[in-house]
């Protein structure tokens, strides 16, 4: 009965349920290590029993109960009298120990712990993927191209800080919530972007396990915080970006938006993304991710690149610049300006930006110079762009464009 199929099926269920199981055990026992170990033991029990007895009707519940029992067994075995005493109290009392914030959910609590500002940013990403995404340390290490021992140390150090400094397992108070949600969204978006456009030379250009995980975590977050428009905005942004993935790389080369085969876009994701953007518009509390989502909605609304409503895109970028006054936003606005007012006006905007180490700045300049027939300068700009990126698909695209230049 123990066919590879059933083991794979159990592992899939386990990964889907992992965040919920661990979060519930962390809340109950107040200790991440106990939670992770017990969850691992529950998986072993499932692999042993499910192929024989069949998958239980509520596999997630079964895993959580089994893991909880294993954790209690372990705590009973522990030798420290104090720890034993304290744990015994927890076994007696399955209720949350702290007054809960405005929303109650174990996973939500845990994601706020994982993304706590007192942890190093790279540790926040790793912990979130480990504890809520259920990725193994080896998988996370591979995703971020660091040795497994480095990633294991990073995660261990972060868990130690959570425990020693007493970073709480709690939804932040209402005063803090908005700022802390933004921290969580930033971590998830980082995971998504690392998957969508890898910054590393050795990885494949798009790593869908990271984009998929980021979307799944944001869906959970939206379920838990339905009234925070930026959460909805981030989900819409990621869906509309993900929708273009199937045609974003062709023959190992990055295909820019304008040249993509729009028939290859995922219409279901686009429809869902557009619904979410409309929901944000109705709330009328715009923010960074919502505006980015709206820009992507305008792009994905156009049947062909020529139909793009560049006026609206430029307006949205201006609004985005008001919220996030970064030179990168100004650079993207210049791309829309090139379509509206011509490449010369756009080039003047671009040249004012201090982004000389950013590959997209050079690539945008190169494209504008090419359109202005200034081939020699365009070639230099393509070379500069290539010097600033390690992403193979992007380099392939830039190389082709440079080689197409006339003299």
């Amino acid at each position: 009965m123990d066919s590879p199929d059933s083991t794979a099926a159990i592992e899939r269920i386990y990964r889907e349920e992992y965040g919920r199981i661990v979060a519930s055990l962390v809340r109950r026992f107040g200790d991440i290590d106990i939670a992770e170990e017990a969850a691992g033991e529950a998986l072993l029990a499932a692999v042993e029993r499910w192929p024989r007895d069949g998958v239980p009707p509520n596999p997630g519940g079964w895993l959580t109960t089994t893991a909880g029992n294993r954790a209690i067994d372990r705590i009973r075995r522990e030798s420290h009298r104090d720890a034993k005493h304290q744990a015994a109290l927890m076994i007696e009392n399955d209720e949350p120990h702290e007054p809960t914030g405005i929303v109650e959910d174990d996973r939500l609590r845990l994601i706020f712990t994982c993304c706590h500002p007192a942890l190093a940013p790279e540790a926040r990403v790793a912990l979130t993927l480990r504890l809520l995404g259920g990725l193994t340390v080896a998988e996370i290490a591979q995703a971020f191209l660091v040795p497994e021992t480095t990633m294991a140390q990073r995660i261990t150090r972060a868990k130690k800080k959570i425990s020693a400094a007493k970073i709480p397992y709690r939804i932040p108070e209402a005063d803090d919530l908005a700022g802390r949600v933004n921290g969580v969204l930033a971590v998830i978006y980082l995971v998504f972007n690392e998957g969508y456009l890898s910054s590393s030379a050795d990885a494949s250009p798009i790593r869908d396990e990271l984009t998929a995980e980021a979307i799944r975590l944001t869906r959970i977050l939206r379920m838990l915080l339905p009234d925070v428009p930026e959460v909805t905005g981030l989900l819409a942004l990621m869906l509309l970006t993900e929708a273009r993935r199937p045609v974003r790389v062709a023959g190992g080369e990055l295909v820019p938006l304008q040249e993509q085969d729009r028939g290859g876009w995922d219409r279901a994701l686009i429809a869902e993304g557009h619904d979410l953007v409309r929901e944000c518009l109705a709330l009328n509390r715009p923010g960074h991710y919502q505006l980015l989502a709206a820009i992507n909605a305008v792009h994905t609304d156009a049947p062909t690149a020529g139909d793009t409503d560049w006026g609206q895109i430029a307006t949205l970028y201006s609004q985005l610049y008001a919220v996030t006054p970064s030179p990168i936003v100004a650079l993207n606005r210049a791309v829309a300006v090139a379509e509206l007012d011509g490449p010369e006006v756009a080039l003047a905007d671009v040249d004012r930006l201090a982004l000389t180490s950013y590959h997209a700045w050079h690539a945008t300049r190169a494209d504008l110079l090419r359109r202005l027939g200034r081939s020699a300068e365009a070639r230099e700009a393509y070379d500069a762009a290539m010097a600033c990126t390690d992403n193979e698909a992007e380099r392939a695209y830039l190389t082709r464009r440079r080689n197409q230049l006339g003299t």
Partner: protein
Amino acid sequence: MTQYMLTVHGTVDDPTEVDMAEMQPIFEAVDKVNKKMMDAGIWVFGGGLEPIEVSTTVDNTGAEPIITDGPFAESKEWVGGFWILELPDLDAALQWATEASKACAGKVEVRPFQAEPA
């Protein structure tokens, strides 16, 4: 509950001659925060330290104790003062540190004390 140490750092860039009139509002703000901490029942101890030049280092790890003038290591930053507060968790400590930093017009570092061995 955990005890947290909130430290304020002095640096080489600090003026050596302190203008008392300029410092007065900071003293008042710090007194106010101190009072607030005491009223909240979280105050364990706190105070400002004399300048780093006044420090003395004792090393009794070898055969004979060695007493030297000056700090343990040459540094551009050192502890200038601190609070020890009894608090439920890091979020509470960070909130107090936010107030303390505003009051003393300096960066505040938050560190928990080691738990008592069980």
